[in-house]
């Protein structure tokens, strides 16, 4: 059981700055994120795209913003739990008991949801019957590449994941690569390599085709792919891999008894608290009259939610507002010398 003053759900820019604000006022916190890396949408959706509306930063990419926020957190010791998703939030006397998908538990008076648009999950094949083989012979990520040795593997997708795995697995497996159009999104060098392997006969490439159906009783035997003209091809295959990127789903957050508005959580604008005492929502996932889905709004919301956490984490102390420019206490926390 982990005990902490506040648990932050989501390690995107808003979650990171909220952690900074909590540590600055002397509270401890831990952060859980479903992705395997820190940065949220900034890292997952647009690591290379420049952002132009962060105050005092004329231009930076999603990756640079994430790295800068992490630099700002350097003075502090914050535990990140990546690749883990908060599944349950339950009342436990005056605290919240939290359980994650990896079986970790937390006890805390404050839960701050900085979950963006929910958790990222792999986009799946559209035919319903694909679910029968999911996690057996139909996969959306690779944990152990040895299982593909000597097998026929059919890979769907046109981005770097699909292309990199096609190249890697073509060494020991028979590869079919299928993409809905002729152009690929992957790096040019990777695309060139794919075309080389196609010429050498190591990869069978089918473009303008998409998954139509899967065949097999206990075991996957073959799949049918179709093009826009409705022409079908049957491919015998042992494994199917789909790399269609990630989608965002609200997921378990919908079950925590919070007032929702479409896919967002209703909060007040004083504490950014939800209808549950001690549960806050900040950043893209919260909504209130006038809400702007900007990173800078998330920073503001996180700063106020952090102050609200103080009251529940330190019921016998009074919070005193201090500036980083002048407060000795804050400078000690930051590990910088005061004048």
């Amino acid at each position, binding site marked *: 059981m982990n005990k902490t003053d506040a648990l932050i759900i989501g390690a995107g820019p808003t979650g990171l700055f909220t952690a900074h604000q909590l540590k600055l006022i002397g509270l401890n916190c831990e952060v859980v994120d479903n992705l395997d890396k820190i940065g949220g949408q900034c890292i997952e959706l*647009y690591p290379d795209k420049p952002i132009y509306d962060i105050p005092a930063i004329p231009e930076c990419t999603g990756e640079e913003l994430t790295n800068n926020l992490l630099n700002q957190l350097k003075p502090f010791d914050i535990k990140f739990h990546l690749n883990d998703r908060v599944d349950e939030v339950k009342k436990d006397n005056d605290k919240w008991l939290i359980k994650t998908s990896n079986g970790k538990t937390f006890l805390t008076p404050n839960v701050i949801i900085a979950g963006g648009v929910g958790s990222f999950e792999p986009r799946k094949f559209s035919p319903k019957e694909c679910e029968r083989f999911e996690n057996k012979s139909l996969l959306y990520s690779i944990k152990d590449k040895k299982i593909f040795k000597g097998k026929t593997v059919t890979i769907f997708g*046109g981005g770097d994941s699909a292309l990199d795995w096609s190249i890697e697995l073509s060494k020991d497996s028979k590869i079919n690569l299928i993409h809905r159009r002729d152009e690929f999104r992957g790096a040019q060098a990777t695309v060139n390599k794919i075309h080389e392997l196609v010429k050498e006969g190591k990869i069978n490439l089918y473009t303008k085709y998409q998954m139509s159906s899967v065949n097999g009783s206990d075991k996957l035997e073959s799949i049918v792919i179709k093009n826009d003209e409705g022409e079908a091809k049957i491919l015998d295959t042992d494994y199917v891999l789909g790399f269609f990127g990630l989608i965002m789903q609200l997921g378990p957050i919908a079950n925590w008894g919070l007032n929702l508005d479409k896919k967002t959580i209703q909060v007040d604008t004083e504490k950014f608290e939800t209808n549950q005492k001690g549960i806050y929502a900040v950043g893209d996932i919260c909504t209130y009259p006038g809400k702007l889905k900007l990173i800078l709004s998330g920073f503001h919301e996180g700063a106020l939610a952090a102050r609200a956490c103080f009251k529940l984490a330190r019921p016998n102390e009074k919070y005193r507002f201090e500036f980083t420019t002048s407060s000795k206490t804050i400078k000690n926390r930051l590990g910088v010398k005061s004048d």
Partner: protein
Amino acid sequence: MPKIIYNTFDNQTHSIDVQNGLSVMEGAVQNDVPGIDADCGGGMACATCHVYVDENWFDKLPKKEDGEEDMLDMAFEPKKNSRLSCQLIVSDELDGLIVNIPSKQA
């Protein structure tokens, strides 16, 4: 104001007057037309405002940027006439545009 016609998957037709300058996605979201999620809010960073453009209209629309085609790779059942509705900006030329909303966005 130009009229945009949204056909939902369950054969409901929503005929909406949408202000010039708004996107076809915004026209749907602001008027509660179901079936367009627009998770990223119009940043061309997801593919959850995907629509099938009526065949008579498809060639009349401004061409896709590369980024839109890349995102459409990730849409649910993309077809030749697929577009991201956040990239279709309403103007007088688009008066009467018909878009069909897929059965789901993800």
